[in-house]
């Protein structure tokens, strides 16, 4: 399908695309800019865009007041751990749904997804009680499990759609070649699904990294990840915008960098199966 695109049209389209991109990115940009301002400049009216005295003092104060590395480490463990655990559980689940579907497979898939329609707060109370009983409050292990369960439907769904694209005959060939279930999953299915698994992992890490509801409610100090780190700067004693911004920037920086480097993989993953 050839369509004539005039140079003017191209310029307008490009400008429009940049406009939309900037609009979406602006809050993040504003947060980053604010983190380099003094508290007074941060609330100045009219707002200051670039013409202020750039300072790193917010970062120094934030680092001094709270141990950033500890929160970061908790985030890495919780996001990475829940993703890893989720993949280990979801690969066999998606395998069985894609290659040996039963009468209820479609219903189970939908039912799993329906759990995402429930407001999280609706199950906060029971989960909180379970956590108390099991002594999991403010533990990284507990959060790994909860975040894994929260995101499991999405992981299974994504893997299921990838697996559906893999011809079943190849797995049958593996079975004929003497591969047991473990070998079939390990040597044939998983390597073939690597692109799909990679984008699933990435998306899930981002989701788990940014998860605030459960991390805030189920942690206090020991297992608190970066989301709790940010929240600790929005205190009732008064808002310190510059410091809050510095904390936010520090919290989102790792995931922003990860997303930047893996954007190709992510876009491919999110649009996979849309066009055959």
């Amino acid at each position: 399908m050839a369509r004539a695109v005039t140079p003017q049209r191209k310029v307008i389209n490009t400008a429009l695309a940049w406009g939309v991109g900037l609009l979406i990115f602006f809050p993040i940009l504003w947060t980053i800019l604010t983190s380099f301002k003094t508290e007074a400049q941060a609330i100045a009216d009219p707002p200051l865009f670039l013409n202020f005295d750039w300072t790193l003092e917010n970062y120094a104060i934030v680092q001094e007041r709270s141990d950033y590395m500890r929160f970061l480490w908790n985030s890495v463990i919780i996001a990475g751990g829940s993703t890893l655990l989720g993949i280990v559980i979801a690969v066999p689940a998606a395998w069985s749904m894609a290659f040996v579907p039963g009468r209820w497979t479609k219903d189970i898939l939908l039912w799993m997804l329906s759990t995402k329609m429930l407001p999280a707060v609706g199950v906060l109370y029971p989960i909180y009680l379970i956590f108390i009983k099991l002594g999991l409050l403010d533990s990284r292990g507990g959060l790994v499990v909860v975040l894994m369960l929260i995101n499991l439907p999405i992981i299974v769904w994504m893997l299921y759609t990838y697996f559906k694209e893999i011809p079943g005959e190849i797995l049958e060939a593996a079975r004929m070649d003497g591969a047991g279930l473990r070998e079939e999953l390990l040597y044939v299915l998983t390597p073939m699904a690597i692109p799909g698994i990679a984008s699933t992992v990435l998306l899930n890490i981002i989701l788990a990294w940014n998860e605030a509801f459960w991390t805030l409610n189920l942690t206090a100090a020991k297992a608190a990840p970066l989301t709790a780190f940010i929240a600790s700067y929005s205190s009732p004693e008064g808002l310190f915008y510059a410091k809050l911004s510095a904390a936010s920037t520090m919290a989102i920086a790792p995931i922003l960098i990860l997303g930047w480097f893996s954007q190709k993989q992510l876009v491919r993953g999110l649009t996979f199966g849309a066009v055959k």
Partner: protein
Amino acid sequence: MGRIVLDKVTKSFGDVQVIPPLDLTIEDGEFTVFVGPSGCGKSTLLRLIAGLEDVSTGQIRIDRQDATMVPPAKRGLAMVFQSYALYPHMSVRKNIAFPLRMAKLDQAEIDRRVTGAAEVLNLTDYLDRRPGQLSGGQRQRVAIGRAIVREPAAFLFDEPLSNLDAALRVGMRLEISELHERLKTTMIYVTHDQVEAMTMADKIVVLRAGNIEQVGSPLELYREPRNLFVAGFIGSPRMNFIEGPEAAKLGAKTIGIRPEHITVSDSEGPWSGVVSVSEHLGSDTYFHVHDTGLAETITVRADGEVGFRHGDRIHLTPRMDVMQRFDAEGLRIA
């Protein structure tokens, strides 16, 4: 060894029985072809033998061992799929070595066997390529290589040539036949192409709607088809069937005569008709004759080049000694 016995095997999908109770013995070393129109259950039967589908009732024995509940990996059979089903993420070498790796052979033995198979199949130069970089014929050879390295009790082929173009198909057909001559291993081959069946098989199993219509050597099926279905399915071009007074004269409901058993003449013969289409192949000439009063079209195959054209009136003489007679049930009258 690879003697395979199916004992009252049935297969149902839900309420639909695709294989009614079926008995079949495939002798060790035999090249058996399952042939039939699409949907006749031939692939299902092969998958039952492979273990990729579970039988509903009955028993499958491989070399006297009950294999009915044995998983495919443990049956000692190798399969070549229509789509080749190569592992796209592995090199040709790794593809061929995969069953040996699964069998936990040591690396030296794996290398030896892979090299051997690659030589036999002319794949030596391609061992480090991925399947995506190979042509259809080469991919099929890799699939065969993957099957032969493990020295299975039997090979199962599921329409292995249908994705290849015509010229390549004839070549691969010969290669598979030669492979069988050399290995003397049991082979079960599924196809809908009766030419493949006739040229390759020691034994042909003709299937229709899950039922075995006839089992026999290619020439037995050609000369003594058990019923109308087999008579029509085996042989190319198809056998001519004639009903009515001409059949009644011979004491049959239907009579059948193969195109190659009719001679043409411009002046004499008991039947006559008008040439509708003539196909000149050089080696043979096919005539599709209308207005014979016997059947809508009578197909005739004449040796060499015979010069009748569209619209010519010609006379036909069937060879009475090979005329087949069928009764009202469609069964051949001996």
